[in-house]
């Protein structure tokens, strides 16, 4: 494997767990995906663990599977809360990491560098109370119930959809007028200008 990348490799209950140095993660993941004999072509899940022991680092956990070899491996990267909580995104290797990393960002506040669209996925985008799965987060949230209700009611349920997320960006020009208006009013909604039609050749 990549020299210097593996910090520790253990096998627990027949499952392989490999700890990777943070700055070598992308290199190691590329190796795991592309090397013949490894071919971990399926990213099962990305999650993170914060331990009650404050000394222990936060772990970002990747579950990989090789569909051909029917083999699993678990990759862990340790992040110390004192440092910036950031790792490289593996979106370039497995596009399925898109929402998985967004969820880890939403719940733990871990930044994935190079992620194409890193924003909250479960909580709404204007959620201001922090990252719910961190140990420092109170179970009932930081705000009072009345403030939580007020903020929730003031959220616009349509604001989170943009044309890009609806996968109809290229159809923007063909949408009905009222739908275009509705999407334009959304917080994130940006209507791309319809492409100007090529000048029609003069009819002979």
């Amino acid at each position: 494997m990549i020299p210097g990348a593996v910090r520790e490799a253990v096998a627990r209950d027949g499952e392989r767990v490999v700890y990777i140095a943070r700055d070598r993660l992308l290199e190691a993941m590329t190796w795991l995906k592309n090397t013949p004999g490894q071919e971990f072509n399926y990213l099962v899940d990305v999650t993170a663990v914060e331990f009650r022991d404050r000394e222990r680092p936060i772990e970002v956990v990747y579950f990989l599977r090789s569909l051909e070899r029917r083999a699993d491996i678990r990759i862990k990267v340790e992040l110390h809360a004192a440092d910036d909580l950031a790792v490289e995104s593996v979106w370039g290797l497995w596009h399925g990491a898109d929402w998985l990393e967004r969820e880890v960002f939403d719940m733990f506040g871990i930044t994935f560098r190079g992620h194409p669209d890193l924003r909250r996925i479960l909580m709404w985008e204007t959620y201001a109370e922090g990252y719910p799965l961190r140990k420092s987060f109170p179970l009932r949230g930081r705000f009072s119930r009345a403030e939580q209700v007020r903020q929730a009611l003031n959220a616009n349920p349509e604001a989170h959809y943009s044309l890009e997320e609806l996968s109809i960006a290229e159809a923007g020009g063909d949408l009905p007028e009222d739908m275009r208006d509705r999407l334009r009013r959304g917080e994130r909604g940006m209507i791309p200008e319809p492409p100007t039609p090529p000048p029609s050749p003069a009819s002979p």
Partner: protein
Amino acid sequence: MKRVGEVQSSNYLLAKFQDLVDWAVNSSRANSLWPMPFGTACCAIEFMATAASRYDFARFGMERQAFSPRQADVLICAGRLPFKLAPVIRRIYDQMPQPKWVISMGACASTGGIFDNYAMVQGIDTIVPVDVYVPGCPPRPEGLLYGILLLHKKIKGESLFDAVRRREEQPLDDKGLRLAPETIDEISEPFGNSIHQFRSS
């Protein structure tokens, strides 16, 4: 408004006539409730069982389930309501034409239930006014039917002519809250074992 028991015969007749109108209107409303199901969790399974042939709430005039709020009379919130859905159910409720009623089905919709955490509305009565709370986790179909019959009873007690008994929706304030913030905090206060968990400040 003078009611039955006044000595003047004209008022007596008027009151009798009003009672007749109330009876006709309320019976019509109560016996043709069109439900708007808002199922978010396991209570919706019991709701579906209530709608299906074994329990069949069509027997009570709820034949047509309106999946459009604009043709619905009673909103049945079956299941827990996260904060993310709070503006959705508020909008659905605002879209329903009056007169409209709300049944809160199950422990989570009524109080937050076991989900006393950062993500969950602690009772949908902080979002929309609720007429009938059906307890249970989830309630059996008999429980929901009993709640529907209680709602019938409530509707039949309303009056078009009596400002006290007439059902009037309070307009919602522009801040989005239906209740005063102190009230929301009070009714969201944990109880039972959960008071031993630490609380946000």
